[in-house]
């Protein structure tokens, strides 16, 4: 019998790598600035999904999912704490993703503004047509 979990995990890793490749291709080789920005957001989302995957915690038993990292007892004993740490997911990757999403939003908004400005000045967003700088 086929191991569904392992199969799905392979699909996930494969699609992450494909996404990385596609987004880097888009950023470097697509001539349109709008498509470059879309590729940039795909790259950012791929990184975020990767972070979430790293923070994934497998189910402890088929009917016991991991719990959110919130301690619900007011004065926890040592037993409470060890049970908590054996069940709770790691919140840090999600905090990282939250920060990265917000930063990504700011960067994207800024780049979109620049693209609008490029369009106003040149009438196109094709980098081959606006290229005046020699690098």
């Amino acid at each position: 019998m086929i191991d569904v979990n392992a199969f799905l995990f392979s699909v996930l890793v494969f699609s992450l790598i494909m996404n990385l490749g596609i987004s880097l291709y888009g950023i470097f080789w697509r001539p349109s600035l709008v498509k470059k920005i879309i590729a940039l957001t795909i790259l950012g989302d791929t990184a975020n999904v990767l972070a979430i995957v790293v923070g994934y915690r497998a189910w402890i038993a088929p009917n016991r999912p991991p719990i959110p990292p919130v301690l619900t007892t007011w004065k926890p004993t040592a037993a409470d704490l060890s049970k908590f740490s054996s069940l709770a997911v790691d919140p840090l990757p999600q905090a990282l993703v939250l920060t990265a999403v917000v930063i990504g939003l700011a960067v994207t908004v800024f780049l979109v503004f620049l693209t609008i400005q490029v369009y106003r000045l040149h009438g196109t967003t094709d980098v081959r047509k606006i290229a005046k700088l020699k690098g």
Partner: protein
Amino acid sequence: MEAGILTIGALAPILVVLAFILPLLGIFIKRKVFFHAYAVVVTALIAAATTYNLIVVWREGPQLYAFGGWPPPLGISYEVDALGAVLGALTAWVMLFIAIYSCWYMDKETGIPYYYTLLLGLEAGLIGCIYTGDAFNLFVMLEVLSISAYGLVGFHRGRAEAVEAAVKYGIIGAAATTVYFIALVFIYGSYGTLNMADLAIKARVMAVATPFSGGYYGNIAVAAALAVALSLWVFTYKSALFPNHFWLPDAHPEAPTPVSAALSGLVVNIGAYTVMRFLYTMFGSNSVLTVAKYPFRDIILWALLILGIVSGLVGALMMIVQEDIKRLLAYSTVSHVGLVFMGLSLGFSTVPLAATQEALTASLYHLINHSVGKALLFMAAGIFIGIAGTRKLDGLAGSGRKAPLATAAFFIGFLQLMGLPPLGGFFSKFLLYSAFMEAGMPIVAVLVVIISAISVLGYAKAMYSVWFRPPAKEFKNPAGITLPTAVVLFLAVVCVGLGIAAPYLTSALSTTIANSLMGKGVLSYIQAFLKTINYLSPP
């Protein structure tokens, strides 16, 4: 104060707040002089605070500030060792002069509150990158720095070239920082921590267990190699090392001149500094990167050495063919960054530690020389561009004769970068040369000399145009250039001082490197971290 001194933790957040109230103030206050005074006062305060940090760190060793009182690996911590303190003070002082110069340069422009918002934001990013003790916070601060830098490059948003340079810089820069985020995911997934001191412990597989970060996951050597390889993109991009140098020559001509000074003098330091942090503090010579089956660290350092050499040669050669003075200075930056990276890559496992220390000292010394010299050159070039009304070397011919004092400073700046004794540039290049000789790499040592020799051609061309060539046309006598002339003259005096004080500076910087990047320094970095944990959560 066991929880850390406030001037370390508070600088970056306060700067961000001070920067972002400026647009609000701009609604109510219309007088330009207020914003000039505001920026100068703020940067002066920051310069004083960073100098205080430097003194404290020099006397008492690395200082750590834990935000919110969380014990370090749990919360964000800022940790300043000798290297960070020196570079922080350098950044803040050069930024102060850039702000003073902006009072003159930006006075005729509109949108001054936004300009200073971005400039102070840039300083917040720079200080944050240098002071942070947390690899993820470094990502955040890199983005603060980058957004401000993109905005400043495209500040003249009505000019097609400025917007194009900004968008080119911005898109690739955003991709590079995102790749750094992927590198952080690998580090976190494998080491379970993002704190730099904690990573330094765990990458050396030391038996110091902190109560907050558990074991490892997966192959830590491969994860570290992958993470360093991915993060090097953004570091070399920020420091404009070949082949990631393409944004710099485009961004400079279009950015306002003080911004060019900041980009060339300060932003490129960040890349070199973070590479030192990653390859010496965190994944140093006795870490998993070296002792693994494959010598990953040596491969990475060799790659950096080769890129440094290529960058030095390309920058020096491209400088000769430039017609635009700011592009010429930009390629000179590429060349000098190459020299700095050559110095900091001399940490192979086969090289004696004394040579590594000497090369790192040379690198740091050269960074300081280059920051002061290049800021001086851009600001002086701004004066000449103001006189001649063009950036072309042909149009600038003879314009220096209208501002002889600025020309004198301009010449001192060039001689500094060229490496003429007794100016600072000579001693740092000589130190680099002797470090390579000591390491048994005479060919690379000779390449340092060759790079300097080629770059002389470019510098001579600029100096010749500005002073010796007959004037291109009858220039008007410049009015009101006392302030910028005073700034560039002061920086010229600093250049001379950096050279005259060379014996003292060399030993001081050597101590700095020994106290921050060599074995003993890394140990004290780790000890400051453990001390804070013990203080904040007693065992």
